[in-house]
């Protein structure tokens, strides 16, 4: 009784988080989409006359030291943010989910043991380390950053996929499917994947948030998005020297990053409670 009551109460409250998260994420996505067709100004156009232009007069948030419109940069920066997140999470999911499922479907086999050990090993190479090393080999840039973040996130996906698969594997319908002699691959695709999907979505949104932060940190270290492509992380980095005289230049990308991360985190939390309370215990990994 107690569990039911509180879970219900919880779900009602979490919906607020889910809505807020969804709204923030939608805002980022929408901004990015609009930026393909329209921005107030060319975000990369250097205009010496408009250096550090104050907000107003068509420049909603003013301009940076290159005279580039901050608002336009923020809009296109949303694109970069999503791009980094989608590719990094995509890589992590594409590699991590099959591995985690394979490990979960053969819990006592050598395959499972091997996968999880390799997983631990990859986990020992944090995103930042990979990014720095890949940057040294192939040159810093958005792609190397995304690959590094993606690969470093594989273990998180593999673990969640494995844990969720283990839970699903003991349910009646899987037992029935196995008893009916269904092939493993078919079971994985038809039965396991749809049932662990909700947890993976949760993991995806949490990883997305982390990817955004990682991109910002890499930009700060000079291993992130290449100039002049607008990126919130690089905007923040570039505005550092003007932090005292023109704080708004750091303020806006800072807010953008914080809201996007907040959005994806809230979305992840909200989805976890909303989609499948049964699997609530498998927590998304950072």
């Amino acid at each position: 009784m107690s569990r039911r009551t509180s879970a219900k109460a919880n779900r009602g409250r979490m919906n607020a988080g889910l809505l807020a998260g969804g709204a923030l994420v939608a805002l980022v996505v929408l901004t990015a989409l609009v930026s393909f067709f329209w921005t107030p100004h060319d975000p990369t156009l250097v205009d010496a006359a408009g250096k550090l232009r104050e907000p107003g007069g068509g420049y909603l948030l003013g301009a940076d030291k290159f005279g580039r419109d901050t608002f336009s940069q923020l809009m296109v920066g949303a694109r970069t943010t999503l791009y980094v997140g989608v590719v990094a999470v995509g890589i992590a999911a594409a590699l991590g989910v099959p591995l985690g499922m394979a490990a979960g479907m053969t819990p006592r086999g050598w395959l499972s043991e091997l996968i999880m050990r390799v997983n631990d090993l990859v986990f020992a190479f944090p995103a930042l380390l990979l990014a720095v090393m890949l940057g040294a080999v192939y040159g810093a840039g958005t792609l190397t950053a995304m690959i590094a973040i993606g690969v470093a996130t594989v273990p998180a996906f593999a673990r969640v996929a494995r844990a969720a698969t283990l839970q699903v594997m003991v349910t009646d319908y899987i037992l029935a499917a196995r008893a009916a002699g269904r092939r493993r691959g078919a079971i994985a695709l038809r039965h396991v994947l749809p049932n662990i999907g909700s947890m993976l979505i949760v993991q995806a949104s949490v990883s997305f948030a982390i990817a955004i932060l990682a991109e910002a940190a890499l930009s700060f270290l000079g291993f992130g998005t290449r100039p002049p492509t607008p990126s919130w992380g690089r905007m923040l980095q570039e505005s550092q020297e003007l932090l005292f005289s023109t704080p708004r230049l750091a303020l806006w990308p800072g807010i953008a990053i914080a809201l996007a991360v907040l959005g994806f985190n809230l979305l992840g939390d909200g989805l976890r409670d909303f989609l499948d309370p049964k699997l609530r215990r498998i927590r998304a990994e950072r």
Partner: protein
Amino acid sequence: MLSVEGLTVRADATDLVHDVSFAIAPGERVGLIGESGSGKSLTALSLMGLLPEGVTAAGRARLGERDLVGVPESRIKGLRGDELSMVFQEPMTALNPLMRIGAQVTEVMTLHGRSRQEARARSAELLERVRLPEPAQIARAYPHQLSGGQRQRVMLAIALANEPRLLICDEPTTALDVTVQKQMLELIAEVAPALLFITHDLAVVASVCERVLVMYGGRVVESGPIREVFTRPRHRYTQGLLAASKLTPRGTRLPVIEGGVPAAGRFPGGCVFRNRCPHATPECETPPALTGDGHAFACWHPAD
């Protein structure tokens, strides 16, 4: 000894238990039956002061001279585990997985003033009393090393540790194997001082209790001595319940109660059973009172 008057439990604006009154005399064994969602567990939890967050109880419940409802936790917690104990439905999760059994048993005694040494000695006795083999070994074990039946015995030992005046059991055998169930019930019947026994299983009530309360929709719809209520149910719900339980394994279809139990707050006004009752009339839109001495019921159209 225990008297409950006008107990009402609500979450937000919804009454989950409405105006429930009953009493238990020393040594008496009372059953509380009903389907899930009938409010029987909440009734028990409100007596213990263990209602979940956001759920509050009003009305009056006294154990001896002590109020149980509407008092702050600091006042009631001294009674819990001492004069008033409870065994829960799910033995697998009711014990702390990280603590040894012995420590969990002694805890309830040291909490209520016994010395550590005394408690330790007594816990061995208690484990023996609930018929656990090799109590010393069990005391050193962790919960996961025990079977469900064994764990429920441990829970019983904990409940009995301070010789409570009243033991509340909430579906204590539901999660157990049938063979284990029987032993457990015998044990409870043997060791319980006064007992409030909650179950949905009529047969179980019949084997353990002397008197029974039937709950539906958060209300007591019928109460009385087991023999009378079970042989001559008056409330239409009780009647249905009994009929349903008499399904034989080979099962010719006997009348079953139509429809399902509504969700909390979705019960109709008036007689809460009227939307499922084949005998309902417009009269039933007025709430019937629980009337009758000894064998009481709340129904406008009672069975004979």
